[in-house]
């Protein structure tokens, strides 16, 4: 009977054990190279360090390769999706619990912050318009106040359309 297991040790694209095999072969060849390439007079500590470094280099290279793989990226995405879903459920539960006790939750402070930022935008936008109008009036009447005109220019530059931007 002709049976195809779908796994061949020599094939780089085969089976799940293959990345480990490749790592092992790469590591052993680097370690052996580091160990036996030394002149006989070199210290054993130095040889051991070079072999250790060869191991780390090989390991780092395979870690990098793995962390770029689709398998890792999808696992990372799934892990993060799950963590975020859990955290969101926790947030919702805490919000409901706090609201039941008539206590403000994070969502309430968020709302207040957003209202404050919106108010700030509107006020700044109004100030920019007023400064511009004052500067225009001064221009027409010939009365020049450097502080007003520079403030208008600065305000206009910093908040040209802040309301529209948000």
């Amino acid at each position, binding site marked *: 009977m002709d049976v195809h297991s779908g796994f061949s040790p020599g094939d780089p694209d085969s089976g799940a054990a293959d990345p480990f095999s490749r790592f092992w072969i790469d590591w052993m060849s680097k370690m052996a190279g580091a*160990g*036996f390439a*030394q002149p*006989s*007079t*070199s*210290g*054993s*500590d130095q*040889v*051991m360090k070079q*072999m*250790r470094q060869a191991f*780390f280099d090989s*390991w*780092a290279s395979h*870690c*990098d390769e793995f*962390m*770029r793989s689709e398998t890792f*990226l*999808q696992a*990372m*995405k799934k892990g*993060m*999706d799950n963590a*975020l879903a859990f*955290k*969101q459920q926790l*947030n919702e539960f805490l919000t409901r619990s706090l609201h039941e006790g008539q206590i403000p939750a*994070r969502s309430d*402070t*968020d709302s207040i*912050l*957003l209202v404050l*930022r919106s108010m700030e935008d509107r006020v700044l936008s109004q100030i920019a318009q007023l400064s511009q109008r004052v500067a225009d009036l001064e221009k027409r009447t010939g009365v020049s106040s450097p502080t007003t005109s520079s403030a208008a220019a600065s305000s206009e530059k*910093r*908040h*040209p*359309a*802040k309301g*529209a*931007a948000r």
Partner: protein
Amino acid sequence: MNATCTASTPWMVSPDDVQRQWTDFLRKMSSLPTVMNVAQKVRVGATPAETVHRIDKLRLLRYTSDVEPRYQTPLLVVFALVNRPYILDLRPGKSVVSHFVNGGFDTYNLDWGVPTDGDRFLDMEDYIDRYMNDVVDHVRERTDCDRINLLGYCMGGSMSAMYTALHAEKVRNLMLMAAPVDWSEREHLLAKWTDASVFDVDKLIQVYGNAPAELLQGSFLLLKPVSTLIEKYFSFYENMEDEKFLEDFFAMETWLNDNIPVAGEMFRQFVKYCMQQNLLIQGKLRIGGRTVNLRDITCPILNLTAQHDHLVPPDQSLPFNDAVGSTDRKSINFPAGHIGLAVGSKANRELWPKVRDWLAERSESL
């Protein structure tokens, strides 16, 4: 004791070797009290500094020195939002700031502070057009100087580039240090991890508010897991009798573990518009209703990149020089890593004196 291996077989360990390793181990263990002592007494920050300005959580530091000031144009250093800015002044001999302070520059450092839940809606406009602009105006008024020098590191460099494009009239010289501006190359590990298909930054910020410090630190460590989680500790073990090494090691560890969250909206916009959509280099990024056009940058440019940078590879920084409108532009690709560019002995010995000279030639003397 004979420390040499006479045979060419390192796999065979002689009794002498075992005894030597054991003695070595005992000697290292006997130095543990010194290690603990150094760890407790570790100090970060080499140059004295005073806080001269505050806005919300941000503070502006001015470095003080006995050195006679030589240049009227002040220097403002802008660091990233993801860590603390004292990496640029970590220890004596490992301080970027000290090169400029000792060279006679009035030097300032922008400490963004630690954002809390209430800062989650701070966005690019707040950080660049409001905070940075206020700080630059403060430095200009304080020094009676129309234009200042800017040095931006990492994300702080990207922000400095954006700021200069929007307020070109306030910047005399711009220096970028491992600053990403072009994310078109998607083969880098961080680019793969932050790709829109696997990283939903909208959801992250919606759920967490701010970008959690632990997530950022974990991601940075995982970029080079063998080096940051294993090799580093082997190196520590081997050098634990060297007090100078220990001082540097613990100072660096203090900084590496001093992570801070990033304001949610700012993080979301930076990841989405810069890292995922790459709008900055294309001239399509909008801040506060205005388009950030890098061609508007016409001041002299010095772009520093690190050859072995795994966080911001040079190809993310170098396109900046072709995107600006400046004619006086230079780049230096130094053999160092992302952090080594700031704290490396070689960088402090060879690179930073050159950078200081470059800036001195283009700054107004007193």
